[in-house]
């Protein structure tokens, strides 16, 4: 389909971008990698008055070591995230999950920040951000604020950001040593969305699970942190039995959708099976 008319600007700095966004009013959209927004434009499901293209705001592409945390710029592409030595060293779960996003073309254009702001519960990275206790740095002409991942995803395709706010970057605590990570993505074709995904990190101390982070993709209108699973494995011996029984908690607090790709019932079943597998993979 052919998109409807919109104004187009391409600022070169974050300040210019937030000003342009503010000036353009409520029906403006920021264009990052365009891998979600462009299809909506082309299908005429979105009719923004203005598009503000962030493609030239190079400052937003930086991935920075902040000591205990990494700051991943919102415009870092998936490809960049996958290859980045800092991400690979300190946030391997993110690199692992980003590798599963769509196909190579999408990963080269699509951005980390863009897929988070789109807040699609079927996207892979929202659950990862949730599991990693990410903090979202957003900016508008009114200033900057931080939003915790647990409060960022508020509803189906809806984030806590105001229409005049721009995501600058995402700060994530380094995982540190002793963690095993895994992103278990269940999808029918390589480029398809996850029917269910499990982002998982487990820290073991010898034969005991010291800590765990588990979050689910596409098990509700927002990504779901599987706190029940985390609690059920902490302090328990590393064993398939532990993981299987802990995974029984995976569906707590979920509201899986029923759609062409899977019924809610099937998704619930998958969440349980895949959570056990992800926990196992993290400790393998």
């Amino acid at each position, binding site marked *: 389909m052919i998109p*409807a008319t919109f104004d187009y600007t391409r600022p070169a700095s974050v300040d210019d971008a937030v000003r342009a*966004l*503010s*000036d*353009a*009013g*409520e029906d403006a*959209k920021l264009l990052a990698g365009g891998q*979600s*927004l462009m299809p*909506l434009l082309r*299908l*005429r*499901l*979105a*009719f*923004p*008055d203005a598009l503000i293209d962030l493609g030239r705001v190079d400052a937003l592409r930086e991935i920075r070591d902040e000591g205990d945390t990494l700051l991943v710029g919102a415009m870092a592409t998936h490809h960049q995230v996958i290859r980045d030595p800092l991400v690979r060293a300190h946030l391997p779960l993110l690199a692992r999950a980003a590798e599963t996003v769509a196909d190579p073309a999408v990963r080269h254009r699509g951005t980390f920040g863009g897929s988070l702001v*789109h*807040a*699609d519960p*079927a996207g892979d990275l929202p659950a990862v951000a949730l599991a990693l206790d990410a903090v979202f740095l957003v900016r*508008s*002409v*009114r*200033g*900057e*604020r931080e939003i915790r991942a647990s*409060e960022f995803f*508020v*509803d*189906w*395709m*809806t984030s*806590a950001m*105001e*229409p*005049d*706010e721009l995501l600058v970057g995402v700060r994530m605590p380094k995982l540190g040593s002793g963690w095993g990570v895994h992103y278990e993505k269940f999808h029918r074709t390589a480029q398809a*969305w996850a029917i269910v995904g499990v982002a998982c990190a487990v820290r073991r101390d010898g034969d005991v699970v010291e800590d765990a982070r588990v979050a689910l993709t596409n098990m*509700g*209108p927002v990504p779901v942190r599987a706190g029940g699973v985390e609690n059920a494995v902490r302090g328990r011996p590393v064993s398939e039995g532990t993981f299987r029984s802990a995974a029984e908690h995976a569906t707590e*607090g979920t*509201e899986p*959708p*029923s*759609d*062409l*790709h899977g019924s809610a019932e099937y998704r619930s079943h998958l969440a349980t099976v895949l959570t056990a597998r992800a926990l196992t993979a993290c400790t393998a």
Partner: protein
Amino acid sequence: MELDHDFTVPVPVDQAWPVLLDVERVATCMPGATLDSAEGDEYKGRLKVKVGAMTITYRGTARIVSADESSRTVTLEASGKEARGSGTASSTVQAKLHEEDGTTRVTVHTKLNVTGRPAQFGRNILAEVGAKLIARFAKALAEELESSEESPAGKKSDGKSDVEKDAPAKASAPAKQKDKPAKKETSKKPAKTETSEKPAESKASEKPAGPKSSEKPAEPEASEETPKPEAREESAKPKAQDKPAKTEKRDESAEPVKRERPLRVAREEDAIDMLELAGPSVAKRAAPAVGGLVAVLVAIRFVTRRRRGRRKR
């Protein structure tokens, strides 16, 4: 898609009944709905649904097709066309009142039929949005009916105090709607509704509210206490002037009608994006204002209040 909702309001059936017959009052319960005009018993209006980056606006009509006082059943039909696409939406809403010990249990059965782009995806936009929309409608209807306690039958619910109105709203909120899983697909999602309802209640009490807005203790009020981004309000004005083409488009959207009755709700800006209501808690979204002139803020707050006030309906 068929949806069922069920709730109880602490007013007698005789008091609730006239409210159901008042299309203007019932229509205001639909989030995102705007009535433009009325001709005979047919009302023209719009429904704007906004989900993330997606926006779908319908223009259409609504009317009561049957009202059976003996069985206390009202059937309302609404249908519309996409303003910017070829799709259509139509719904039949049947509300039935049941007397239960001086209170009224209301069952609402909705048939929703959507065509066009929103119906052409495997990921069920309808299930995500439609069910939520109807759930919001049912909730607002519950509140509207409760408010009838203060407004005698047949009389518009003007001029009642916030206190009078807030109390039942709060009391009614928990567990008013219950799922009927028997129906196919989705009915509604308890957890979701719960999260979106909570902030609404907490806010209701803060509400300043003019006579119109008092009809419904809806949620966005809290935002009035929060300085809103000045940018949006500022831009609203220049947009109308700088972009004649777009303004023109908007003007065309007003349906030409032969005989218009004044309506309580009849302004373009009133269209609500549904997720603004249903989704994020306003408290969560409230941004700390940094910078900005106090004078400007005051002015903007005034504008905001007016806009928000209207939006609520």
